[in-house]
């Protein structure tokens, strides 16, 4: 506990010279070493691992400088917000964690107990980017709209926007909390009257692109900007989009009148033994020079009040809306979004039941689908399962495509029954025969094209799971020409292929690219892939 040392008061000149010479030699040795980093730096066990939100990827270019200045190397492992919180609550072994905010994490009993220290590093409000011409037309550039103004435009189909899934990603989560607090007549209680509930539904009629991560959302927005009017994301992401030169029309940043929810990027210490390194990293990140750089390079607002904000951040007073202090309130808001407020989803599962799926692969598939039908009782599992009002179509295929079997997930007390029906159906899957991937997929698109006409206010998507190459029916090339004949709206429906077994990864990537979807790797954990895709449905 106590250590004693002796003061140096009578160092003579010779001693001093000895020490200085040694210090110089040592210094040149150490500095020489650090200027030639090992090629396998990625796997260096000395690196401090950080469980981080994917929105922090743009911090990476600063990390070599951090290591140079402090000797501490950070290695960021990316994960979704709620999933990260859940993993920490379950004891995932990370000395540090870093998310755009840690409010949900701190509301989870098990995760909160692990946080030894926390320091906010920067700020970025979650705001609404609107095409400049629309913002001008509606005078939103001069008079910021309220959240209900946005809802009114969305209900009329005049404002179609991109926003992440609030149960997977922090930007969507923050936007949802802000929306509810803004519309509620009692924002501290997050309670809604039936009329306000309707306004929330109106708002989400405009959510025409969703995603499980903020970064993917902005990439997809760039691809689909022609059919969208705006995007909800961190101010920093929107400022970077405007700078990127990828937009045909710049976005006007809208700070809704009732207020916003701001991310504060806390760096969390989880392992008390790493306190010294943590303190160094925090001191470095909060130093004026680095705070300036964070502002200039990553478009986040500095946490240091002494640093003047650059003009592009605007000068308006940002009203910060309340954030719930109880997990039950947050869970209620998220559940209500999924079961009542968002556009109901219609998810197509095009599933390979060919002979090669027999055995372990089939049981992995059944487990994954069991989880989506209520078998996963974890926090994220509950949000990821099929939700009320959702339509689920299963299109199993062998050397031929089976007709679709559809389940409508009922609301309220009847949800469990409809989940049980879907569960029973999938647990009876039997694998045999060949692999007609593209015929089955074409069948799904044909059906969706019809459904879209009858039910335009649904969010359609396809999950394609196959463990091998196409052996019968339509070829990839045939599918491509079929796809190009589809109506424009049907071509906008994304396919999310899952890599599994001996799947044809090149073809899967082409499908994802062609439909605007994304490939997920299910080779290590098929259930996790299915679960992650739920954030994109």
């Amino acid at each position: 506990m106590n250590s004693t040392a002796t003061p140096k008061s009578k160092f003579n000149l010779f001693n001093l010279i000895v020490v200085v010479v040694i210090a110089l030699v040592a210094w040149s040795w150490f500095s020489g070493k650090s200027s030639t980093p090992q090629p396998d730096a990625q796997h260096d066990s000395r690196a401090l691992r950080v469980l981080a939100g994917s929105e922090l990827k743009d911090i990476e270019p600063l990390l070599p400088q951090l290591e140079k200045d402090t000797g501490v190397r950070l290695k960021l492992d990316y994960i979704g917000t709620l999933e990260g919180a859940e993993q920490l609550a379950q004891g995932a072994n990370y000395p540090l964690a870093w998310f755009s905010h840690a409010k949900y994490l701190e509301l989870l009993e098990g995760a909160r107990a692990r946080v030894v220290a926390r320091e906010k590093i920067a700020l970025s409000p979650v705001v609404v980017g609107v095409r400049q011409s629309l913002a001008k037309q509606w005078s939103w550039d001069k008079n910021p709209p309220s959240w209900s103004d946005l809802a009114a435009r969305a209900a009329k189909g005049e404002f179609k926007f991109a926003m992440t899934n609030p149960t997977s990603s922090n930007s969507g989560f923050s936007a949802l909390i802000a929306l509810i607090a803004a519309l509620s007549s009692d924002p501290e209680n997050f309670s809604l009257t039936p009329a306000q509930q309707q306004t929330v539904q109106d708002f989400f009629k405009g959510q025409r692109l969703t995603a499980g991560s903020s970064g993917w959302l902005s990439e997809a927005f760039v691809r689909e900007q022609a059919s969208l009017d705006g995007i909800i994301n961190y101010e920093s992401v929107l400022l970077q989009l405007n700078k990127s030169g990828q937009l045909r029309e710049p976005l006007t940043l809208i700070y809704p009148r009732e207020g916003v929810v701001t991310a504060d990027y806390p760096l969390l210490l989880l392992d008390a033994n790493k306190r010294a390194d943590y303190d160094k990293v925090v001191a470095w990140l909060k130093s004026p020079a680095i705070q300036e750089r964070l502002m200039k390079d990553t478009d986040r607002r500095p946490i240091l009040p002494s640093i003047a904000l650059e003009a592009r951040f605007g000068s308006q007073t940002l009203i910060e809306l309340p954030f719930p202090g109880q997990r039950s309130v947050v869970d209620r808001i998220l559940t209500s979004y999924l079961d009542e407020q968002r556009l109901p989803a219609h998810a197509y599962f095009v599933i390979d039941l060919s002979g090669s799926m027999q055995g372990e692969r089939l049981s992995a598939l059944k487990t994954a689908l069991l989880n989506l039908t209520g078998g996963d009782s974890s926090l994220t599992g509950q949000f990821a399962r099929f939700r009320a009002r959702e339509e689920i179509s299963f299109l199993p295929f062998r050397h031929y495509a089976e007709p679709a079997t559809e389940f409508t997930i009922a609301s309220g007390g009847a949800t469990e029954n409809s989940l049980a029906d879907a569960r029973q159906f999938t647990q009876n899957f039997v694998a045999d025969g060949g692999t007609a991937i593209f015929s089955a997929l074409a069948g799904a698109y044909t059906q969706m094209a019809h459904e879209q006409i009858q039910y335009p206010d649904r969010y359609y998507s396809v999950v394609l799971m196959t463990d091998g190459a196409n052996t019968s029916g339509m070829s990839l090339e045939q599918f491509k020409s079929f796809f190009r004949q589809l109506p424009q709206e049907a071509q906008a429906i994304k396919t999310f292929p899952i890599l599994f077994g001996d799947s044809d990864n090149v073809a899967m990537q082409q499908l994802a690219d062609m439909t605007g979807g994304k490939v997920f790797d299910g080779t290590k954990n098929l259930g996790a892939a299915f679960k992650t895709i739920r954030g994109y449905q």
Partner: protein
Amino acid sequence: MNRILAPVLGLILLAGLGYAIFNSMSGQLALKAQITISGLIGSEKEAFFADPRVQQALLKQGLIVKTEKAGSRQIATAFDLKKYDFAFPAGQPAADKILQAVGKRPTYVPFFTPMVIASWQPIAKILEANGVVREKDGVYYWFDLDRYFAWTQQETRWKDLKDSAAYPVNKSVLIRTTDVRKSNSAAMYLALMSYIANGQRVVASREEMDAALPKLLPLFLRQGYTEYSSEGPFENYLSLGMGSSPLVMIYESQFIHEALKTPSGIRPNMALLYPEPGLFTRHVLVGLSENGARLGQVLSDDPELQKLATEHGFRTTDTAAFKAQTDNRKLAVPTELVQIIDPPSYETLEGMIQSIEQQMK
């Protein structure tokens, strides 16, 4: 090349250091030893202990002090106190909580600071128009807790107030605090508001507590998410501004310390409101080891350290020194505070916090 050089250089380094240490030690072993001690502190004292002048002054007394910050009220429960030489929470109740955990130990109160409300000129003007704040001597504002308390019971919103055009917000008029379960500054707010809820008397019995609690609960529950330590809300106040933090319960020392910094985060449109009645937070050092107790002694007695404390915005028994600091920077703060109340007993305050905790789950 490095692989061969490294051990060789390492040996040379060791040999050289050993030689140098041997030489400098010989003949002066009798000199007073320096002692490294470690302790847990409330976050509001982090800057004080990090100040090189403070470290130098402590070194003169033979002390090297290592600190870790924690929510003052967490110190007693969330840490293994055997590993530390001292605990230095904010607030007598937090210190009492530690003493309950470790038994009788020496305590020192080297400095103290009143609870204040960090706010903004436009907000103060609105509150003034509505009779909750009044200006005195042209600069600082007295904040009428009694009238404010009535608003909280009616869930009054900013946009409902008279002349609130500068802040037409649908949020409740609520002072933001830290998490009352974790941090002293929120507990001090509870102490103040329980006095008001109890009809201007310090809550002293179970009956009074039970009567006051239903009125006090919304002050905390309606805040929603709260932060763990007192620097959190103040940081939000400084960097997120009026839209996030119209009224924040802080220690006066936090504001003064920030004002004395260069560059400073304090801007001309900020305002400091003094609640009426007021309450002092005593910064109580609990000596867990003999050397930890010496730190308490030194902080209380050493004139240089006492002066440095005032430079960090704390008040000491030397009111003139405090006044000199604030006058120097033209900071208008009251030297004397009248109508100061005491917090309730440790047991009463703990009891109230536990009841609130039950409701926050």
